[in-house]
């Protein structure tokens, strides 16, 4: 009976595949998230997730894969961000905000002009239950790529994140490494958007790392913790969706946010306890 309760969400026709995809995507995005926070690129990540909307809508209109649309959307978004950043007398925050607002608006305009795209809402909020074995395969390939890149570039990332000015003196090619970090961010945001939609993808990318870095300050352990939290949150979110009858991607996003808030709260309490005593 208990076994049935525990296994039911993972069994059946959708549980296992979507759980598998969520574990892979959640883990990969969680690990990348640690670097996103270390490089202080949370706003950029947030911007990417929203700004890739026109790409998703175009893909839905043309009938191409959403992942492809997301990647194209991120690249276009980055191009516009670079262009906006060159606007005179404009701070980077303002430039980002203008570009994102423009792109989200273009996404909405495209969606309203293109007749009969399959549920605009699912592009915004995603549906991880629709995972096919092909999706899982692509997700695995990307996750392996992300893992390899993180392992290979971890040292250089650490040097650059620690002190961007002195990193070049340590033999770190700052331009190349930043570009690699950016590419990783773009890929993970696209993968996350494919699963959780444009509006909830950010939770997958920064949430696990936010909680992890509150609990531990060591790089290695926060990478491990963020990966674990990202993977686990997907599965827990699936259970929540199964038993509470909530939309799956929203459940997952909420679980991740709870993890981040909970971890930060626990860390806050621990930091305060010695002073009380």
């Amino acid at each position, binding site marked *: 009976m208990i076994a049935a309760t525990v296994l039911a969400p993972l069994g059946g026709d959708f549980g296992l595949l979507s759980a598998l995809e969520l574990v892979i995507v959640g883990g990969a995005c969680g690990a990348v998230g640690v670097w996103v926070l270390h490089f202080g690129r949370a706003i950029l990540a947030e911007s990417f997730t929203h700004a890739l909307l026109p790409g998703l809508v175009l893909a839905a209109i043309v009938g191409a894969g959403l992942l492809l649309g997301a990647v194209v959307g991120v690249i276009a978004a980055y191009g516009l961000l670079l262009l906006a950043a060159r606007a005179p*007398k404009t701070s980077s925050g303002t430039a980002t905000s*203008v570009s994102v*607002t423009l792109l989200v*608006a273009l996404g909405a*305009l495209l969606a309203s002009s293109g007749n009969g795209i399959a549920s*605009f*809402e699912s592009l915004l909020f995603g549906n991880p239950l*629709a995972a096919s074995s092909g999706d899982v395969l692509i997700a695995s390939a990307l996750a392996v790529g992300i893992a390899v890149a993180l392992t290979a570039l971890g040292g250089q990332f650490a040097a650059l994140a620690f002190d961007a000015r002195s990193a070049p003196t340590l033999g770190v090619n700052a331009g190349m490494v930043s570009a690699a970090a950016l590419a990783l961010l773009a890929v993970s945001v696209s993968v996350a958007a494919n699963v959780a939609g444009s509006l909830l993808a950010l939770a997958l990318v920064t949430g696990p*790392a936010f909680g992890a870095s509150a609990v531990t300050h060591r790089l290695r352990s926060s990478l491990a913790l963020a990966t674990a939290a990202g993977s686990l949150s997907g599965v827990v979110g699936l259970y929540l969706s199964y038993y509470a009858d909530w939309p799956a991607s929203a459940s997952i996003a909420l679980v991740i946010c709870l993890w981040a808030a909970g971890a930060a709260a626990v860390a806050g309490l621990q930091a305060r306890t010695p002073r009380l005593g």
Partner: protein
Amino acid sequence: MTLTAALENPFNLFSPLFAQRALLAVLLLALIAAAVGWAIILRDLPFFTHAVGTGAYPVLVLGILAGVSIAVSALIGTLVFALLLGLAAGIGRTRASGTSAGRRDALTGLAVAAALALGAVLAARAGSENARLAISPEALLFGSLLTIDTATLTVLAIVTVLVLTTAWFASDRWLAGGFDPGVAGHLASSRSDIALLGCVAIGAGASLPVTGSLLAGALLIIPAATARMLTDRARHLPPLVFAIAVVEGVLGLYLSLNFDLPTGAAIAAVAGAGFFAAAGVVAVRLARGPLRPAVSMAVVALGAVALAGCGSSSSTSNSDGEALRVVATTPQVADIVKQVGGESVSVTTLLPAGADPHDFEPKPKAVAAIADAGVVFRSGGDLDAWLLPAVKAANAKSAPVDLSRSAVLLPAGGTGESFNAHWYLAPENVARATQRVRDELVKADPDARETFRTNATQYLDKIDAANRSLSACASKVPDGDRSVMTGHNDFAYLAEAFDFKVAAQIASNGESEPSASELQKSVDRARAADVRALIASRGEVTKLEQEVADKLGVPMLALYADNLTGGDDASTLLGAIGYDVDRIVDAVTDGAVKCPATQ
């Protein structure tokens, strides 16, 4: 004043009441932008603005479910979210480790994602328990003219006065606080900073009904960012921001009205184009010295107008001035009306052929058409619930005629809606609706009553013939092969009329995505009943439905349920019913039985 005339003349375009309301809203928003927009730019608050706007989404959904006006819920939503952000930042600061700016941004981003997720859950619960949201999530996210009601204007006016007053007193301190936080920040006091955040929050809240939750920055951020490039004096910013916001807001509104675009998106696109145009010109001219404000305004206006020119699309008009003007919400209803009305009516269909009625958001032209119409026919139920805000906005002469009232109705498949809205897929209901349409048209235009009666009789005969031939064909299907699965509850009438059995459906509530458990239960049920096909509404076949069909190993049929398409074999309602029956019969019998075409 006809719709055609309105398309040619901007002044006519703005003459309906709802358009004037929108114009007033944009002017008030421009004032708010002038009061706080410059401070948002100079104090690096664009992300905060975007965050409070988006973070208001769950309260927005809750407010609409509770029947609170969208303007009031938006205001409460942004304030609540701004307070939560402030609390979270405060807690973060008291922690021994301290909070870096990067972490604060991450926290803000996560809070936004959590708010959107919460809003999605609430909207989904609403879908299953209540009828549906009267205002679509898209309208909440991207803005709509139809949400600008008297309450919105009242709230906007109050917020404008509040923000202008505060800015008048506090703007010196807002400026100093951003200039060098170490010293001037002291002089400026934290109270004025809190006032600034409060003003930004209520400003964003007030703009939500116009620009939507995701695009709060369309008028609050972009015009100010544009103005900043054009002047080096903080003193000149407010009037410049106001001028730019008015130009871009009105232009966006004009495009929204003329080309039926979501209001927030149209304004944001115009403003964004204006920003990049100004950036290009300023960058080029920078070497030759500062620009005069007048020149720069012209640049922004030109950039935005250029966009307006590019944004042209084919405008349809189908009014000949003489015939009775009728509005139909869906192509199905429009078909019935055309069959009965013939040449004597001119029908405007609100839902474009092929579009999803669940996601549909009535466009500005729809409101103008409703305002002009002699009769408005609606299909009824959750299929065109979006009509009601449009009717309200149009100040229509008479209430719409709900054809579902004349039909024999089935209960809704899910827990929520009072009845299943797809009645028109049963030929018997089409006949009943035809009689109702005939009576209403006669009432509206007694002079043409003979035409209407003759047409109606001919159409009723056609319905009867089609029904007989299709029933005969469907009856050839063996009893064991009559089970099908559907994506939504949209084929219940068709199945009952032709004796098929809907053994399971993927989503029980409206259009919202099924939960994991719900999905598994329906797939199990489908297996147990040995279904022969999975049927989904054409144009709305989702990845999930395709996946389910593959899992079950049955053909995936994309049939006409929610809509018709123009031009092909199913441009008429009877044609669509015939197509649907033929494809189902073909699929469940593996091509052994064919049905004759119906028109």
